[in-house]
């Protein structure tokens, strides 16, 4: 009998796992995919909102492509209970799916801050396709939009809201914007840039209630004047979808960030149960410590490592790099690795008036984190973004370059080239082999 793989979740981790199983397996296997939603990319929903792509563009697998991959899709069904010992999952409709191994890739969901009135009409999250549709229906030219939360997710949809002709006010409870993505100096630069682009940011502001007044939303604050909005978007955090695993015996971390405890093969405490993406406490490539990243590239790497292991290979994951990039009205803002680290040696430089900023964090000769900000039209910003990633990822010894980088944190390229970072990076692959083009594997021959 063919091996039966069960993939729970059709996001980035789940689909990358499926593709990799098909790329790697020697014998055709059975793959079942359980997903509450049709497979689509959450990463690209902001572009759907901004009307630069159509809705059809967001789907990452169609019924036809799943058929071509010989995947049995159970779309619209959610896993409700896992019994690792029996090798069975019970779905929300009571049906049971048996497996030889399974991947938990149930991702995260958006959570609204516990503010009275946050469940009312016109108060949205922006996380799922359905939520995106609701926001799209709600915002018309001239709409007043208030975004509660000034984190990464909020910033990914900022351009799109403005592109729809709405006015925007951002409200953040922390004393500054992007509190978990960049440092205070960089946040200040972004805030000034926003002001120039007519986006108001109100930091240190606690929303106490959201009331429905004559078809509009009135937000009251612990201090300061209330705001009136046509649409409120709550970008107040995400939470991993793990509740359904209660009683399954799958071990979770009680440390901050939580997540399913996994080994370097992304296996849970049950050898035939894997976890990937936002629910998995995988290895951080810089620190070596386990943590939940909840970012797209980590989900992708996890998914592929699990797929290879499910297909019978023995692939250990070196770890993933925490990184984020967001473009705000043509200003690029990115951070890598341990960008907030009191134990690190820190070099910073700002070009005042040009919205350019660099922050480099070292432990000895090793670059362990970086923050970068600059206009997207400035080509060096984009190039430096990649090279800083390469320096952090490779862990190359920059000892000889520290005096130079301290004097000029903008001059990254000579250090990158002269330390032969390219030769260190070239042998690195996630699966120990060249990656394939993302088209369908050509040789799926499951009977």
């Amino acid at each position: 009998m063919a091996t039966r793989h069960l993939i729970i979740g059709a996001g980035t981790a789940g689909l990358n796992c499926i593709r990799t199983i098909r790329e790697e397996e020697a014998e055709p296997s059975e793959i079942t995919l359980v997903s509450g939603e049709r497979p689509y990319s959450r990463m690209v929903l902001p572009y759907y909102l901004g009307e630069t792509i159509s809705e059809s563009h967001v789907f990452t697998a169609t019924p036809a492509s799943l058929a071509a991959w010989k995947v049995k899709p159970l779309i619209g069904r959610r896993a409700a209970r896992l019994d690792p010992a029996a090798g069975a999952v019970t779905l929300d409709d009571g049906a049971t799916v048996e497996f030889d191994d399974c991947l938990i890739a149930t991702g995260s969901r958006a959570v609204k801050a516990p503010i009275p009135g946050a469940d009312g009409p016109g108060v949205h999250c922006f996380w799922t396709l359905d939520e995106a549709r609701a926001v799209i229906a709600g915002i018309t030219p001239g709409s007043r939009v208030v975004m509660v939360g000034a984190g990464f997710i909020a910033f990914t949809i900022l351009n799109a809201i403005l592109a729809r002709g709405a006015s925007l006010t951002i409200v953040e409870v922390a004393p500054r914007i992007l509190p978990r993505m960049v440092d205070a100096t960089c946040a200040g630069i972004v805030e000034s840039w926003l002001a120039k682009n007519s986006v108001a940011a109100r930091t240190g502001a606690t929303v106490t209630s959201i009331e429905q007044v004559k078809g509009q939303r009135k937000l009251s604050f612990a201090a300061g004047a209330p705001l009136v909005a046509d649409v409120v978007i709550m970008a107040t955090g995400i939470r991993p979808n793990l509740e359904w695993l209660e009683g399954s015996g799958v071990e979770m971390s009680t440390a901050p960030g939580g997540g399913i405890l996994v080994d370097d093969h992304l296996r849970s405490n049950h050898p035939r149960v894997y976890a990937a993406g936002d629910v998995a406490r995988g290895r951080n490539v810089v620190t070596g410590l386990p943590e939940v990243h909840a970012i797209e590239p980590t989900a992708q790497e996890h998914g592929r490592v699990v797929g290879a292991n499910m297909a019978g290979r023995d692939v250990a994951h070196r770890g993933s790099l925490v990184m984020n990039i967001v473009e705000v009205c043509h200003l690029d803002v990115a951070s890598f690795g341990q960008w907030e680290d009191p134990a690190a040696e820190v070099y910073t430089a700002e070009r005042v008036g040009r919205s350019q900023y660099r922050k480099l964090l070292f432990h000895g000769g090793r670059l362990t984190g970086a923050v970068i900000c600059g206009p997207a039209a400035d080509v060096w910003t984009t190039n430096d973004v990649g090279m800083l990633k390469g320096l952090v990822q490779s862990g190359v010894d920059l000892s000889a370059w520290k005096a130079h980088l301290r004097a000029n944190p903008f001059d990254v390229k000579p250090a990158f080239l002269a330390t032969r970072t390219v030769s260190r990076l070239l042998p690195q692959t996630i699966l120990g082999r060249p990656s394939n083009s993302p088209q369908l594997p050509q040789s799926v021959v499951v009977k």
Partner: protein
Amino acid sequence: MKALAFHPTKCTGCLRCELMCSYTQTGQFQPAKSVIRVAPLEGYTSYAPYTCTQCAEGWCMTACPVGAITITAAGAKDVVDDKCVGCKLCTIACPYGTMFYDVDTRKAYKCNLCGGAPACADACPTQAITFEDVPADDWIGSFAAERTVRILALDEAAAAGAR
């Protein structure tokens, strides 16, 4: 499969490669849009051309959330414009700093070996850039190390002076 090879000792820093690259890739003679970059070293006395190695992992390709980066018949990773949404994930995923973003088209772009006839190699008057049957390599790292020694010595001296 043929790849770009760089021989920096032959590079004069004339930037013809950047000019032809930008024209072939974007239709504009605008070096700022070139995906090959000539790195000036040692105070603009040495030069080394640098672009995508078409690395085995293809960090840009595997990171793309919509599968917009594919491998072409020429063996290059290339951005499919119709699929790219401009999210820039490839620009942070690429550890070589060789992904680019066109602010006019709002798409990512990169070296695609010009479909198998790279304009940079064709334009180079000194054969500092060649297109050969060679594996991906760090063509300019040792050269850059050698041609930055004096800069680093000056930095050290300045730092010592400050102490």
